[in-house]
C-alpha cells in the first residue's frame, strides 16, 4: 500500500510490504540437508547463527522449490530466530520464490546493457511462446517467466538465467523458442553456462 492515496504502487509489491500467505504442506529439512546447513553454520560465530538464514532458505528452495510458511517456521527454529525475522528476509530478496514455481524458472535480465541489446524482445518472445506473462507459470508447471535486474554479465547481453543458477548468454530474441524447446528436451544441460567456464572446457582443461 502506498502512503499516498492517489499514487498506488503499480505491479507487484514493494519490498517494504508484507503479505500473509496460505500455509503449505508441513516442512522439515531432510537429514542430509540439515547436515549441510549445520556445516555452513560453522562459518559463523555460534552466537550469530542467524547469518545462516540465507543459506538455509536456499536449501529450502532446493528441497521443495519455494519457501512456504511452514518452511519459514522450520528455518526459524533451526537457525534460532523468530519466524518474522526469516519472513523479513524471504520477502526482501529477489531470488526467493514465495509461491510454487515451474520446473524451469526463466529469468531474463532487463537492465540497461541487456535492454540496449534487445532484452525486452527476448522477454516478449518467451512470453508469446509460452502464452504467459511475466511472473506467471504455464499450465503444465514447466516454465515460470521472470524479469531480473542486472545479472552482471553485460558483455554477453542479453542474458537469461535459469533456476537462479544457470546462465545462458548472448540470447537473441529469435533464439527464445529454441531455448525453451531445448530446455524441455534436455533440461539444464541445454544451457551454455558461463562463457568463461565454457572457454576452459573447449580448451580441453
Amino acid at each position, binding site marked *: 500500500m*502506498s*502512503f*499516498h492515496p492517489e*499514487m498506488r*504502487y503499480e505491479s507487484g509489491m*514493494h*519490498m*517494504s510490504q508484507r503479505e500473509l500467505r496460505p500455509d503449505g504442506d508441513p516442512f522439515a529439512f531432510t537429514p542430509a540437508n540439515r547436515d549441510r546447513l549445520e556445516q555452513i553454520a560453522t*562459518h559463523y*560465530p555460534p552466537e*550469530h547463527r*542467524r*547469518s*545462516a*538464514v*540465507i*543459506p538455509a*532458505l*536456499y536449501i529450502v528452495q532446493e528441497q521443495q522449490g519455494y519457501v512456504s510458511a511452514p518452511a519459514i517456521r522450520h528455518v526459524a527454529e533451526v*537457525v534460532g*530466530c523468530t519466524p518474522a*525475522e526469516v519472513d*523479513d*528476509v524471504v520477502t*526482501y*530478496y*529477489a*531470488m*526467493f520464490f514465495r509461491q510454487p514455481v515451474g520446473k524451469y524458472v526463466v529469468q531474463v535480465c*532487463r*537492465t*540497461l*546493457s541487456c*535492454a*540496449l541489446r*534487445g532484452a*525486452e*524482445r527476448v522477454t*516478449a518472445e518467451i512470453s508469446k511462446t509460452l502464452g504467459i506473462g511475466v511472473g506467471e507459470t504455464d499450465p503444465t508447471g514447466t516454465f515460470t517467466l521472470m524479469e*531480473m*535486474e*542486472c545479472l*552482471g*554479465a*553485460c*558483455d*554477453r*547481453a542479453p542474458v537469461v*538465467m535459469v533456476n*537462479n543458477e*544457470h*546462465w545462458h548468454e548472448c540470447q537473441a530474441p529469435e533464439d527464445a523458442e529454441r531455448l525453451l524447446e531445448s530446455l524441455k528436451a534436455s533440461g539444464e544441460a541445454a544451457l551454455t*553456462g*558461463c562463457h*568463461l*567456464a565454457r572457454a*576452459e572446457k573447449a*580448451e*580441453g*582443461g
Partner: protein
Amino acid sequence: MEPVLTSHVGEPRGATLDAYVGRGGYAGLRKALGLAPAQVIDLVKASGLRGRGGAGFPTGMKWQFVPKDSPRPKYLCCNADESEPGTFKDHVLMERNPHLLFEGCLIGCYAIGAKVAYIYIRGEFFHVQRVLEAEIDAARAQGYLGKNIFGSGFDCEIYVHRGAGAYEAGEESALLESLEGKRAQPRLRPPFPAVVGLYGCPTAINNVETLCNVPLIVTNGPEWFASLGPEKNGGPKLYCISGHVEKPGVYETSMHVTIRELIDKYGGGIRGGRTLKAVIPGGSSTPVILPDQIDAQASFDGLVKAGSMLGSAAIIVMDDTTCMVWLAENLMHFYRHESCGKCTPCREGTDWLLKILRRIERGEGTMRDIDLLADVASNIGGKTLCPFGDAAVAPLLSTIQHFRAEYEAHVREGRCTCPADWRAMRTEATGP
C-alpha cells in the same frame, strides 16, 4: 600496459592453485607475514591504492581506521556483490584468478588483525561460488590458509557467503546487515564499519579488485604500483565495456587511458559504424557524458573533472539510436525495484519518478512533468542514509540536463521520437 591482474585468465586451468603457485603466487603473503601488520598497511598506503568498488577511498587509510587494540574479533569482508548495472569485472577475477583474491584477503586480514574473511558474493554468481569454494579447499589442504600459515603463527579462514538478489547489499553497511542474516538495508553512520561493523566488531570492507591489487603491491613494491598510472590514480584497472560496441568485455589497462580509447581501441568502436550519442562512464549510478567529453582520462580524478565519476569503471555506450527518456525509464525501473525501502525519499520518490518517466515515454506527459522530475529528484539526492538516493537520480538528472530537447519532443509530439529501427528492438513501439 601489460595486464597483471588478468594476465592468465584466458589459460585453461589457470584458476587452479598449482597454476597460481607456478607463476609465483602467494609470494606476497609470504613476504607480508615477515613484516609487522603496520608495515603492511604502510606499504598499501604508500602505493596510493584506491578502492575499486566505486567510491575510490584509499584502502590503506580504511585499514588504518580499524582499531588495533580492540578486544573484540576483527573481520575482513570482501564485497563481491557486483551488482552495479554494467559491471562484470570481479566475476572474471573470482572465476579465473581466485587465489589472487584469497591472497589479498589473507594479507588484509593479517594487516588489520582479523582471523576470518567473508567473501560476500551476489546470489546470481552460483557458478563462481562453486569455483571459489573448491579453490579454498585446495588452498587449505596445502596450508595456504587455515591454522598457522607458513609456520608464522597466523591463523586465517576464508568463507564464501552467497547473497540472494539485492543491489543494495553492495553498499557496505547493508552488506553487513545481509551477512548477519537480515534485510540488506544500510546503517546510520557514524559509527563506521571500521569501528562497529560485522556483529558489532571492527570490520574492513573491500572490493574484489581492490584486494586483488594488494598482493601485487606487497610483491612489487608501492613505487611500481604508483608508477603504473597517473598521479593518485596508480595501478592496473579493469574496465567493463558494454552496450553498443563491437567487442564488449573486460579490459585491463592503466588509468592513463581515455574513454575514447576504451571505446575505439578496446571496445572495437561503435556497433555497425554508427555514431556515439552518450556514455555512462562508471556504472548506471554515474552521470552520462557526451561525445565531446570522451577525451577525458578514465581515472578517478579525470572523470570527476568531466562532471561524472569512475565508479565501478562500467562503461555503457549508447549510439545515436538510443532514446534518452527510455534510458532514464529503464534505469529508474531498476532503482525503484532495488530501493531497500528504509528511507522515505528514495522508497517513494523512485516510484513517483518511474511513473512520471513512463508517462512521458508513452507520450502522455506534459512540460510540467519535466520540471517535476527534477523537483522530485532534488528531494531524493543527498537525503538518504546511503548513496543509493544520489545514484538513483544521477543518470536521470544528467539526461534532463543534456537531452532536455528530447524530453520536450516526447511531450510535444506525444510519442517516442527515437528512430524507428531502434523502436523495433523494443516491445512497445510507441507512436505511429
